[in-house]
């Protein structure tokens, strides 16, 4: 199309006719303005033609829209100022219809946009996974993201295995540490443990301070839930030296973990109010797991008979104990796990392995009290006793006549130790009673527990039947330290060396 300086369209070819949907015959006696100024949408088209006048030296290219009166098209437009022998003729406009191309480009853009949105969604899901995944298992997160009903409140009953872990003596240890140190100990520890738990298909239901509540067999059902739990617990204990190596490097105290495992029915699902919902479990099984865990000392794994039965062959157990947890009708049997075969080949030392105590030439005077529940305050009720034999983690304590109430296996005790100068070291030592017996019978005692008790073994053969036995005044107890202040540690180490 060519326009002259009289506003006449002097050339208009058939291509222009079909693109602009204007017949050449309709242009006769019409000037440019009358044809091309009808629609505001044609401003860009007109402007590109005028640009050829304002900047006559160059060619102008633009993609413009054009309203034909019927449809809005996209045109690729090139305009050039036309001179002939120094005389101004007008402007040539060459254009092609790229509506389809533009639509294609738009749909490409739309596609790109969809892809971008998808990527964003993916990122967001990834973020949710990362945020919650740090605390929850992938299974729970997947369940939440993928099933719209996953967030519905409610639950179902299912037989699963529950694991509860706890750092022994950590609460009293953390009271003496800077908050930053507590957090870095926990983050390192929980990080290592989380990896192992997830590797064994465990679902971390929650972290409660230094404790971890783990589900095996939910939300995704796994037939070998008990076996997974036991293998996981063993690997967690095996990883503890690594955790402590890091602590040592960072100048932080070492920590010890106890693990309790139990198998049984629980109600499982999203529990809570509409505003705050949590995937979790309720039921006696959960409480009992926690009780079983409370019998452990650092490095130990205790499992219930139900878990032992569920695992069956391949389970390697150490001592068996009859215990009577609070809130449970009758005594239950718990097994110390020291290994699992069945292709895992995992094992840890049983508590018995660490029982070689050095008999002290000069006993260490202490004052000791049984800790009732979590109430550990006060100096009253502490009675005289003495440490007669010692190892790094354990001690044999001869109790004075004052212990009328008796001390039983699994009791937690708090003690104060007389230092070298004869005065009491002003810091509490915590320990758990492993077994009780007559004076002099413990340090050299043979371990009577079968190394491989087996899941279905008779309960009567009990390594430390003293769980419920009375330990009267004059008796000895073997204890395992759960929390030893640094000042005391140094003193005890010195005493061991004589």
């Amino acid at each position, binding site marked *: 199309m060519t326009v002259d300086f009289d506003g006449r369209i002097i050339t208009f070819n058939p291509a222009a006719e079909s693109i602009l949907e204007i017949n050449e015959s309709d242009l006769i006696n019409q000037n440019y*303005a009358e044809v091309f*100024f009808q629609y505001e949408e044609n401003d860009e088209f007109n*402007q590109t033609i005028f640009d050829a006048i304002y900047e006559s030296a160059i060619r102008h290219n633009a993609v413009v829209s054009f309203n034909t009166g019927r449809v809005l098209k996209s045109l690729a437009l090139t305009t050039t100022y036309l001179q002939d022998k120094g005389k101004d003729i007008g402007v040539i406009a060459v254009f092609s219809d790229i509506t389809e191309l533009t639509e294609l480009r738009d749909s490409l853009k739309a596609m790109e946009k969809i892809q971008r949105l998808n990527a964003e969604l993916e990122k967001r899901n990834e973020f949710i996974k990362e945020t919650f995944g740090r605390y929850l298992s992938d299974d729970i997160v997947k369940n939440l993201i993928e099933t719209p009903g996953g967030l519905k409140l409610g639950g179902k009953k299912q037989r699963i295995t529950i694991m509860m872990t706890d750092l022994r003596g950590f609460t009293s240890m953390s009271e003496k540490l800077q908050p930053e140190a507590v957090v870095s100990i926990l983050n390192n520890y929980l990080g290592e443990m989380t990896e192992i738990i997830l590797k064994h298909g465990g679902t971390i239901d929650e972290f409660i301070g230094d404790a971890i509540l783990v589900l095996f067999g939910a939300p995704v059902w796994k037939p070998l839930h008990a076996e997974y739990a036991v293998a996981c617990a063993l690997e967690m204990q095996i990883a503890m030296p690594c955790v402590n190596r890091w602590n040592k490097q960072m100048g932080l105290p070492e920590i010890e973990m106890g693990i309790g495992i139990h198998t049984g029915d629980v109600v499982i699902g999203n529990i809570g109010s509409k505003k705050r919902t949590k995937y979790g479990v309720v039921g006696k099984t959960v409480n009992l797991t926690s009780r079983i865990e409370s019998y452990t000392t650092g490095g130990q794994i205790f499992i219930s008979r139900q878990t032992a039965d569920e695992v069956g062959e391949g389970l390697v157990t150490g001592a068996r104990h009859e215990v009577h947890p609070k809130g449970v009708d009758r005594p239950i049997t718990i097994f110390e796990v020291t290994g699992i075969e069945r292709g895992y080949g995992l094992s840890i030392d049983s508590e018995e392995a660490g029982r070689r105590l050095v008999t002290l030439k000069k006993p260490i005077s202490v004052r000791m009290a049984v800790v009732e529940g979590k109430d550990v305050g006060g100096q009253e009720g502490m009675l005289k006793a003495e440490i007669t034999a010692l190892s790094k983690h354990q001690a044999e304590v001869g109790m004075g006549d004052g212990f009328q109430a008796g001390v039983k296996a699994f009791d937690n005790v708090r003690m104060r130790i007389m230092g070298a100068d004869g005065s009491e070291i002003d810091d509490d030592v915590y320990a758990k009673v492993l077994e009780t017996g007559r004076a002099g019978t413990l340090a050299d005692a043979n371990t009577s527990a079968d190394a491989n008790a087996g899941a279905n073994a008779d309960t009567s053969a009990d390594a430390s039947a003293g769980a419920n036995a009375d330990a009267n005044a004059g008796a000895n107890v073997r204890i395992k330290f759960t929390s030893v202040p640094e000042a005391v540690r140094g003193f005890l180490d010195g005493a061991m060396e004589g």
Partner: protein
Amino acid sequence: MDVTTQNLESGACIVRISGRIDASNAGQLDARFNEVISSGRTRLAADMSGVVYISSGGLRVLLAAIKKVKPSGGDLRLFGLDPNVMKILQLSGFTKIFSTHATEAEAAAGL
């Protein structure tokens, strides 16, 4: 862009425009024309001597204004046109619609 108006004793009105008339201010110019026209003045002359650029949108404003005043016997004349702007008016056929003049006196004569 600046726009000022000057009412003549004859009842005509001079609309003085200066600067660039482009997409960003064409609406503003349109509003000023509507103001003048609705005040009853339909015999108009636009002083274009300060206009070095007028866009397609600006031309549409002039076209709309003349369409409003013509039916009631009014007019919109243009004077003092820059050579480039003049070329635009010629090419777009506006010189067939608007009468163009060199000076204000010429434009106002007989308006």
